[in-house]
């Protein structure tokens, strides 16, 4: 067991307070001075079932969930409803203990609540513990909670026991509790916390080696998920309109923005369906607000036609797509990267859009800002594509990262004075869609502006917007719209690339990934490099337009590359092969699609199998797919 980092997993039933407890504990670790990272796993039900949150804390910055974990706090499922003997799915109440043992590292600690998990439920736990050098700490957390407050506070008791066993001082935890609650509830929780701490210290001689690491941040930190990154990026771009319909995991962004935008004097609407949500964002944008909408796979499908309309009418539209496992509607609360192909081409007709897939909180903030800038400047849809994992991944980052200027600029809206001088047709309509050159992006006018009236329509149109079926005009207008992608490509080429390369730049073995798997791939490369491998990795987050030159440079001289992604069909690999054609025999896939994100060890294992040249299968839950053969 590594002693320089803690990977603590709290497990229980949904409704047992796993989420809030883990968040507070994570924040306490961050305030204690550590770098933190959380990974959330939960079922699609309101109460009960197997839920866990993993918190990884280290002296070094953390970019992934890590391999397995080393401390289990098993609270038991207090909402279990089918504990009948011999039930096919086993005893739900004890799941939080048993379901987690597979991934508990050797030498790990198990703290379990004997108030809910009775000793006879635990079966051969002691035998397993001996074989794996696990250290067992059975504590009646429920009794401690009950004595000072209520049953539900057994998670607080669990945190107290954790702190005692890891030699962590209670002050940061107590401080956070005092900020979050007050009155009798606070007093009861504080009593439960310290009682569990003292009880554990008195009752047990700690037999394990793990102690809490120590580090100090040199500046103030904040704990945020990518959903916060997206939301705050939108706010700093002056987004003051959001419309949406609840759907996991998009709901995370929606709930953050609902509160923030109303607070900031904007409009936030939960509407009747996703079609309405996307049409409202178009209406708001057309009328002059910076607007955002979004959904997850199924709901995003309903928005398809609106995306086409936004493209055709050249209405700026910023959308968020939070992927999850399975189409209509597979594993609602589990993660996957399986909407890439869909998002790149959603909508009827020839169409253009910008797509970013941020890989962490920082990128989610920066790329959302960029999405707004591009959408409003070039008048097209810009989509931020992320996934369930990033909605549950909380990380610390310096508060100063957010110390940036707001940009409420509407992009390309003309003033009334400017409109007066811009071309109009003989009837006085503003030629909003004129086609002097091939790449014109004309200034917008807003309803209510003098000299600006025009028609926005999904039909092909003359420069003033009037519907037209003239073939020559069709070609001109289509060329102008389609070529906007090239204009955007050139504009983005001027900016620093968001796509990052790590490792040995001369390596002939490479990894490619996109979006959320950036951090774990980079950790795998770091560890492989430390153990003497020559390897490099490219993480792509600018999905459309793709930075093809950069990717080609990266692949030049590479003999073999593994494309790492969380889907069953290798969608990113497919995109690369569509763009490049001649890498068919170089690119093979490493895929995972069981609903959980990659762990670094899984990538390391696959690399070792590939590099040994002996073929063979990965032993874990990942799949290696051979190259498709050169199809060029």
């Amino acid at each position, binding site marked *: 067991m590594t002693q320089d980092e803690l990977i603590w997993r709290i497990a229980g039933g949904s409704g047992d307070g796993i989420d809030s407890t883990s968040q507070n504990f994570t924040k306490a670790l961050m305030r204690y001075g550590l770098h933190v990272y959380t990974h959330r796993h939960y079922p699609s039900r309101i109460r009960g079932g197997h839920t866990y949150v993993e918190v990884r804390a280290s002296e070094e910055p953390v970019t992934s969930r890590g391999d397995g974990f080393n401390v289990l706090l098993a609270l038991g499922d207090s909402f279990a409803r089918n504990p009948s003997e011999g039930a096919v799915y086993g005893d739900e109440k004890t799941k939080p203990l048993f379901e987690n043992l597979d991934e508990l590292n050797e030498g790990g600690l198990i703290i379990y609540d004997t108030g809910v998990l009775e000793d006879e439920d635990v079966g051969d736990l002691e035998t397993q513990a001996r074989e794996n050098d696990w250290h067992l700490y059975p504590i009646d957390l429920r009794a401690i909670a009950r004595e000072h407050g209520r049953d539900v506070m057994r998670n607080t008791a669990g945190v107290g026991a954790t702190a005692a066993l890891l030699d962590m001082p209670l002050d940061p935890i107590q401080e956070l509790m005092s900020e979050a609650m007050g009155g009798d509830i606070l007093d009861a929780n504080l009593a439960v916390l310290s009682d569990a701490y003292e009880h554990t210290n008195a009752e047990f001689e700690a037999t394990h080696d793990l102690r809490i690491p120590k580090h100090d941040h040199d500046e103030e930190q904040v704990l945020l998920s990518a959903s916060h990154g997206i939301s705050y990026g939108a706010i700093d771009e002056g987004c*003051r309109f959001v419309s949406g319909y609840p759907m996991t995991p998009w709901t995370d962004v929606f709930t953050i923005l609902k509160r923030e935008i109303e607070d900031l004097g904007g*409009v936030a609407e939960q509407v009747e369906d996703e079609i309405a949500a996307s049409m409202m964002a178009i209406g708001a944008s057309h*009328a*002059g607000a910076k607007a955002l909408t979004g959904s997850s796979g199924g709901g995003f499908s309903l928005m398809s036609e609106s995306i086409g309309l936004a493209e055709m009418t050249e209405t700026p539209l910023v959308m968020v797509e939070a992927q999850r496992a399975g189409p209509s509607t597979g594993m609602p609360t589990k993660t996957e990267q399986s909407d890439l192909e869909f998002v790149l081409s959603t909508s009827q007709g020839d169409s253009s859009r910008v797509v970013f897939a941020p890989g962490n909180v920082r990128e989610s903030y920066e790329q959302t800002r960029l999405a707004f800038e591009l959408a409003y400047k070039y008048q097209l849809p810009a989509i931020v594509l992320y996934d369930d994992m990033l909605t549950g991944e909380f990380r610390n980052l310096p508060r100063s990262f*957010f110390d*940036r200027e707001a940009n409420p600029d509407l992009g390309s809206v003309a003033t009334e004075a400017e409109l007066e001088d811009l071309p109009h047709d003989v009837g006085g309509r503003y030629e909003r869609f004129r086609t002097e050159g091939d790449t014109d992006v004309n200034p917008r006018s807003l*309803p*209510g502006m003098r000299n600006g*009236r025009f028609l926005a329509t999904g039909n092909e149109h003359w420069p003033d917007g009037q*519907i037209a079926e003239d073939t020559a005009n069709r070609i001109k207008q289509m060329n102008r719209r389609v070529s906007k992608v090239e204009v955007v490509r050139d504009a983005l080429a001027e900016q620093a690339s968001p796509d990052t390369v790590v490792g040995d730049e001369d390596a002939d073995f490479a990894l490619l990934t996109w979006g959320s798997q950036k951090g774990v791939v980079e950790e795998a490369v770091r560890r492989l490099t430390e153990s003497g491998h020559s390897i490099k990795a490219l993480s792509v987050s600018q999905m459309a337009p793709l930075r093809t030159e950069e990717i080609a440079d990266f692949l030049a001289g590479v003999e073999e590359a593994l494309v790492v992604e969380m889907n069953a069909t290798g969608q990113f690999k497919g995109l690369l092969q569509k763009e490049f054609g001649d890498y068919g025999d170089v690119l093979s896939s490493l895929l995972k699609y069981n609903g959980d994100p990659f762990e670094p060890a899984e990538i390391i294992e696959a690399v070792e199998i590939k590099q040994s040249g002996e073929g063979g299968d990965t032993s874990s839950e990942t799949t290696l797919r051979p190259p498709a053969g050169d199809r060029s």
Partner: protein
Amino acid sequence: MNQFDAIDSGEEVTSDDYTPEIEPQATWCPGCGDYSVLKALKGAMSDLGRDPEEVLLVTGIGCSGKLNSYFDSYGFHAIHGRTLPLGRAAKMVNEDLEVVAAGGDGDGYGIGGNHFTHTARENHDMTYIVFNNEVFGLTKGQSSPTSPKGHKSKTQLRGVAKDPVRPMSLALSAGASFIARTAATNPKQAQEILVEAIEHDGFAHVDFLTQCPTWNKDGAQYVPYIDVQESDEYDFDVTDRREAAEMMHETEQALYDGKVLTGRYYVEKDRRTYQEEKQARDEMPESPVVGQYFDEEKEWERSYDRLDRHT
């Protein structure tokens, strides 16, 4: 807000100001009822003194959707059935705009039925004109949600097996605060009703009976109308929900028996609009959101200053 000079400009407006100087690509058949809607809407706007550039006309798809081509204001010719969410969002961002949505009976009562229900329930301050000709025109004559039971068409070979939608009853139960029906054969009343609908603070639904000379030659829309407000036979209180419901029930049945009744059916004046409801809850600013983007004095709050709960 001098960047929106067209709003409340106070300039005199005539119907001609809404007539495009460039003849649009002709899409309506000779004798189409849609010309009457166009004329009534232009007349209503000039009666109200609305500048064409303060009006946003949002239309759906179909013959009714081409209204924008003939009506020279700001326009958005959107997607089949999706006019209402687009229009209401524009209104929420800039409530000084005069927002009118228009669509056909398939558009409004079929594919857009969900939006119709919810926009009415929320009582957005906008006007919704539904061109009701009981048939799909531009797709060449299929039965629509308001086609009479038994109506035969190429896709309903044995006659429609469904009862028609009752649009006004639907609007009433959904929560619209102004509901009227008028007819293309009745231009004077049509213009008056549109004036009232546009002036109404809240969601105004106007079911506009329009004849389709190509695909629905037998429609009751050709029959002379009876104005329920002018006839002695019909005495009811338009502000009373129960009496209005009863009148609508009779009227909507009578239409299919060949008796066309038009007029105001329900007018609720004291109900808050959705904007007002939201403002009362501090969910929406008192002045238009769009104004913030042009306010040079405004200090835009940054997320940096809102991070305390995350430290």
